[in-house]
């Protein structure tokens, strides 16, 4: 189980995340929805620990001062001050916004680099990834940078799965995808939960395709969590309907 309690993140004096509390039960899909600059990515960075790296690099450059309050607890261990690679070792793997594929490596090599933490199950994981994303099979030797956006997204999710995560964080997995690829990605999220029992936390501004598959969701506005509930309650909420479905 992953818990975020009273998380507050400041960029200088700007409050990016305001007192957000979030719980993700083992093996569930949790959605985090909100518009641009609502704080979704910052929340994902805080859970995966990347925020600490950003903080360090900014401090070195003499850039923005970033402060983090609150706690991130994973399996009843406080991981708030652990570095990203340490958290990844515990099983929290982030599939970042804009995918961040290794552009000069081939698709297969991208997946192999993803298997850094779990070389033992590399074959099994590779089989699973190619099974849920059969399109990648045709491009195994192609450079990652030359794939289309949808293929890159599949590769990014696949690469994260190679690490055998227990919590998979997906940051804007539908960004810039055609409806065809959106469906593939949403289906893969369902499959990841069903066959691998991986906890999935999805941050997305395009909520419509994701809300039906989540178990529990949070709506974030200007850094604060304004609404939370199960899939049905969010679907039937008039505010959510008007803001996210345009009804």
């Amino acid at each position, binding site marked *: 189980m992953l818990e975020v309690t009273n998380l507050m993140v400041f960029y200088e004096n700007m409050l990016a995340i305001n007192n957000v509390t979030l719980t993700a039960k083992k093996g569930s899909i949790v959605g985090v929805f909100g518009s641009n600059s609502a704080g979704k990515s910052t929340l994902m960075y805080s859970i995966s620990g990347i925020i600490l790296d950003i903080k360090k690099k900014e401090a070195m450059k003499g850039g923005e001062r970033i402060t983090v309050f609150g706690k991130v607890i994973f399996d009843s261990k406080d991981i708030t001050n652990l570095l990203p*690679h340490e958290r990844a070792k515990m099983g929290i793997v982030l599939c970042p916004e804009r995918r961040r594929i290794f552009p000069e490596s081939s698709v297969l090599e991208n997946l192999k680099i*993803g298997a*850094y*933490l779990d070389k033992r199950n590399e074959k099994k994981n590779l089989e699973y990834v190619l099974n849920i994303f059969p399109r990648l099979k045709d491009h195994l030797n192609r*450079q990652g*940078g030359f794939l*289309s956006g949808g293929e890159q997204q599949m590769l990014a999710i696949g690469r994260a799965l190679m690490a055998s995560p227990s919590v998979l964080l997906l940051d804007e997995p539908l960004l810039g995808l055609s409806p065809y690829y959106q469906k593939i990605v949403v289906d893969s999220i369902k499959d990841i939960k069903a066959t691998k029992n991986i906890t999935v936390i999805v941050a997305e501004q395009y909520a419509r395709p994701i809300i039906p598959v989540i178990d529990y969701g949070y709506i974030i506005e200007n850094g604060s969590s304004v609404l939370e509930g199960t899939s049905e309650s969010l679907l039937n909420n008039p505010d959510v309907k008007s803001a996210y479905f345009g009804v």
Partner: protein
Amino acid sequence: MQIFIYGLINSISLSLVALGFTLVYSISRIPNFAHGALYVATGYFAWILMNLFHFNYFISAILSVFLSCFIGAMIYRLVLIKIRGMEISEVIATYAIGLAIIEGLRWGGLRGATYTLPVIVPGSIEIFGVIVDYQRLFAVFVGLVIFLFFYIFIKFTKTGLALKGIAQDERAAMMLGIDSDKMAIVSFILGSAIAGISALIIFPLGNIVVEAGYNVLVFSIAVSIIGGLGSWLGAVIASFIIGYAQILTEVFLSTHYQMVIALLAIIITLLIRPSGLFGKQKELEERV
């Protein structure tokens, strides 16, 4: 013919030296200005071990390369880890360490023609009418072996793949559980090992002189900049350009102009094509 063969040998030994510099830069984004110092230091260590401690050649060669790796790792672990990300400080710190090592060796008595390393394979051979000594051919051979080793290491081992990941996108690699500091130390160890090995092969062709440290550094930088900082293929190709340019200046002008040519090449590259021949492909970066 002479120009061709000596150019080839020169280029390969040059790329051997420059590969270490490029490798460290591509993985840790730190320009290791102490690279030349490690090169000279390894040669000197080997000499000390052989002549003062009377070890045999191979033991002292191996020990000195290890020592150079150790110093490289320590430079990162003790100093650079604290200032990583501040680019100017990285340059100043590595340059200061390099200067300290080189000038320390000079102060410690590394002067004159007394310091030579033995040639591993004596004798010479005539290829297409050009006399080439075996040591130079051996340098080419070792260079090729090291390239092959790296190709296999980067392509097929877990650490090698992790290095490749870090080199392309540090943060994305971190998300997959790769420790950036650990990989930076690995890159320093590998870079220093290459510097050390090339020193052991190239120094027997002449004397161990401290000035070689500066030469190696300048030529490594020239090669990396012309090839595109951080590009391994670029470094190899650029060392052929610089390598042949060196030989041509030696034949048609004079040896003293070699350094001028290298520095001019840096300036011209920065003016015409700042990212170098094989700089990071910008068109690949964003595709939404």
